[in-house]
């Protein structure tokens, strides 16, 4: 039996990878992929805690998170396509409409 803390550590590290990707990558598609990585890190904790607490509610939450992640990826990629069509780039350094 692997202690549940190990899963927390693994999940934190994967989440930090995703956060670093969101902050340091300038490609909008890479940012979306990093967000998927972060959601996935949260799912690891859900399943590990579900096993640890002898319940299945965590696994059901994972199914909902996967649903939301799929919707988010689809809408995000549609927005990426719309932005590319409008501005000809997906580099976040050139997409500064809200920066003032």
């Amino acid at each position, binding site marked *: 039996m692997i202690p549940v803390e190990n899963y927390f550590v693994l999940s934190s590290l994967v989440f930090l990878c995703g956060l670093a990707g969101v902050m340091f990558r300038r490609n909008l598609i890479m940012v979306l992929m990093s967000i998927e990585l972060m959601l996935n890190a949260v799912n690891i904790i859900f399943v590990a805690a579900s096993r640890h607490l*002898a319940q299945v509610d965590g696994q059901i939450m994972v199914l909902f998170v996967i649903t939301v992640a799929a919707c988010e990826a689809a809408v995000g990629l549609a927005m990426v396509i719309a932005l590319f069509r409008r501005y000809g780039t997906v580099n976040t350094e050139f997409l500064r409409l809200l920066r003032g």
Partner: protein
Amino acid sequence: MEAFYFVPEMLFYAISGLILLSSIMVVAARNPVTSAIFLVVDLFFVAALYAQLDAHFTAAIQVLVYAGAIVVLFVFVIMILNLKPDALRGIRFSLGEALVLLITLAGFVIVGSELAHTAPDLTMPGNLGSAAIEMAGGNTYVVAMRMFTAFLWPFEIASVLILLAIVACVMIAKKDKRVTKS
């Protein structure tokens, strides 16, 4: 029997190492296609981790939905946009961003240590251990029974969310006549 005692732990450490390696590669690879391929590897090993945790249905859904649908969507969009690999100057390390990473790490440490101390008291363990799930008819059966009774309304709301996402995708990605005319 003694010889097999360490196998799950070795499996866990091997899978964790591969998950970490591939998620670092997702973030660090310059070519978006390389990142997408490593994302598939990462999600596949997370599915292996779920299977090791006796969450068989979740593992199957992980492979089907994430690796089968979402990453294919990413690769499709990368192909449509014909992206070039990033210029390396895209990665610059400012003090504020490093601070954000450090604060997040500190938050994880604080929350994790608090959980380790108080979680067994705060949460009531359920009665669905591995043996009980096995007795009740397997992981998929137990998850389905719980999902379609206690979580029925969230399930229906999720289907409405998917419908909304379909409509939103079509509306957003549709060619805008006013923009293309000018």
